């Protein structure tokens, strides 16, 4: 998939963490592409490796991290081969990150105007007055009210939602080509979350950044993402467009994730849940790592790791259930509902297409 449009390509990435107990295999052969201007969501439980993947891209891993193999190509250059000094020039300039916790990711002793202006001064060597003037513009852009008077305030004088806006302003001030957002709204209330997500979409349109969006909230993914990658136990198990993942998921783990979230229509005595806990990555199981928690597991799942099977040009899933010889299974009820909805949506879409091109319709009838 050497695509002209790919701005970031992660290839065969393997990352181990050295601990006293042994090597924790946090990332086990991950491949990712990020296209220009798109939002790619990575979803998965804690410990599935989503944050480690992006921290490896940023070169911000802990010192006990060991990158066993792989490459991360950013516009054709391998970020893993760069020195720390070269990475410093890229971070905050070409690739920026919005961190999860706005309470701890700002410097409490520095005025916020200065914090927003700092990337300009560091990366572009801009003079302080000019940088501060640009920081003020950015503050207005991210919706900090009364920006002129608040530019000299400290972080503790702002609410959580406003602080996250400041963090976004810092990340975007250099108009980075790639923005990594690691659970940017998890610490916020739903109403504030909605504001921040709208702001991110708006800004993405304005400065055409590509976003890697990490979250465990599938509701947020549905609203933000163009494409989705589902991670489990250090691997990507399924990826596709947002519609393909939400309406026609193929991997039993994706089924479990989608059904265990109550929608506003859910009722009944018990929610479908995924039994058990994720595997210990000190010693990952052979075969499919999800097999032990999977009601649909086949015998081969405990013996051999499933490869990616193609569902469509954009949709791949690593589960033996897609093998031609696999028995036919019926997914959980909620997933069947989603597939029905998808079939109907596609029918409507085709009908709309036909309606707009009546000549073709006649040809088809003949």
């Amino acid at each position, binding site marked *: 998939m050497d695509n002209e449009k790919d701005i970031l390509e992660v290839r065969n990435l393997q990352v181990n963490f050295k601990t006293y107990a042994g090597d924790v295999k946090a990332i086990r052969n991950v491949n990712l592409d990020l296209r220009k201007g798109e939002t790619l969501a990575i979803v998965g*439980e804690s410990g599935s490796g989503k944050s480690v993947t992006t921290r490896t891209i940023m070169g911000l891993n802990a010192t006990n991290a060991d990158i066993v193999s792989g490459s991360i190509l950013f516009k054709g250059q391998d970020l893993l081969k760069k020195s720390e000094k070269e990475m410093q020039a890229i971070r905050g300039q070409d690739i920026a990150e919005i961190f999860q916790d706005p309470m701890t990711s700002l410097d409490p002793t520095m005025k916020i105007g200065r914090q927003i202006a700092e990337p300009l001064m560091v990366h572009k060597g801009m003079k302080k007055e000019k940088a501060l003037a640009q920081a003020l513009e950015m503050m207005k852009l991210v919706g900090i009210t009364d920006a002129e008077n608040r530019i000299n305030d400290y972080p503790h004088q702002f609410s959580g939602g406003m602080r996250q806006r400041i963090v976004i302003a810092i990340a975007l001030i250099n108009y980075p080509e790639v923005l990594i957002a690691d659970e940017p709204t998890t610490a916020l209330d739903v109403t504030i979350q909605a504001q921040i997500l709208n702001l991110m979409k708006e800004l993405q349109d304005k400065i055409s950044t590509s976003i890697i969006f990490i979250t465990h909230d599938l509701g947020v993914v*549905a609203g933000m993402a163009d494409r989705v990658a589902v991670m489990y136990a250090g691997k990507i198990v399924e990826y596709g467009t947002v519609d393909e993942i939400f309406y026609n998921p193929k991997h039993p783990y994706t089924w479990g*994730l989608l059904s265990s*979230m109550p929608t*506003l229509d859910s009722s009944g005595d018990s*929610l479908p849940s995924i039994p058990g806990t994720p595997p210990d990555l000190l010693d990952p199981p052979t075969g499919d790592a999800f097999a032990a928690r999977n009601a649909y597991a086949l015998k081969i799942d405990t013996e051999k790791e499933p490869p990616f099977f193609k569902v469509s040009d954009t949709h791949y899933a690593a589960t033996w259930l897609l093998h031609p010889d696999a028995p036919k299974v019926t997914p959980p009820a909620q997933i069947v509902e989603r597939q029905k909805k998808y079939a109907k949506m596609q029918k409507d879409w085709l009908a709309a297409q036909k309606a707009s091109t009546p000549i073709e319709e006649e040809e088809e009838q003949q």
Partner: protein
Amino acid sequence: MDYENAEKILEVKHLKQYFNVGKADEVRAVDNISFDIYRGETFGLVGESGSGKTTTGRAIIHLYEPTSGEILFDGKNVDSFTSKQDQHDFRQEMQMIFQDPYASLNPRMKVKDIVAEGIDINHLAKDDADRTKQVEDLLETVGLNKDHSSRYPHEFSGGQRQRIGIARALAVNPKFVIADEPISALDVSIQAQVVNLMKKLQREQGLTYLFIAHDLSMVKYISDRIGVMHYGRMLEIADADEIYAHPLHDYTKSLLSAVPVPDPEFERTREEIAYDGSGENDGKERRLVEIAPHHWVRAADDEVAMYKQRAQEASLIKE
């Protein structure tokens, strides 16, 4: 919800909980709220951070001394429990499950001692063998193994720790459990496990829950009735299904419109409703008014007609 045979287990009357009273930084965390909880139901309390939902929970279990107002548990005023014995009995009947399973378990205590602490304090075990048996039964009830009892909290995952917290709350056979954001620190796949466990225990032991949370879809799923709080005030109370289908207060509408739904098609067409909270502080006297049967909305006298109108449009009341 069956109101005919419902019996009140908890009555909160005009509860006020202020901090730093009389100082410049006085905070009115809970400002004159009243509601009832019926035996055997789950009452969900939702609101943004700072709305006073956690303070309400803590005031009910008497971790704070209320500034004013009354809390009646089983008909008795919680404030009147002055003797040690009365307080013991009260704490035995009302228990709490805390938000953070990492911070709420003592890292130096073994699981069996954490779970048995309430048993020891209330002298509920005849001898050591009985104590061990009770602990093992509790661990089994919450889906843990009895071999886990001699381990320390750090050996468990977040979901397992929350189960230990639930076992600890259940050890003293409570009637009423306050669960303050019991699942928000857990992963999605584990959240469903814990919620299912709480529902199962409620069925088996007839527990009453006060479920405090900001995850609105989970609250709707677990609750029979829901109260919406904002700025320390209760704005709307109704049956869970009704409040989600037909919210009457503007704030509830705004809150519900902001909930992300795991459905891309829905998300593409979603419209958020903005809420301007300044109207709440226009100096008018407001109180909870029963607009439709068992559907209460905080309103001033001249707003009642407007809410009745809305209820009629949603065909909650017939005219």
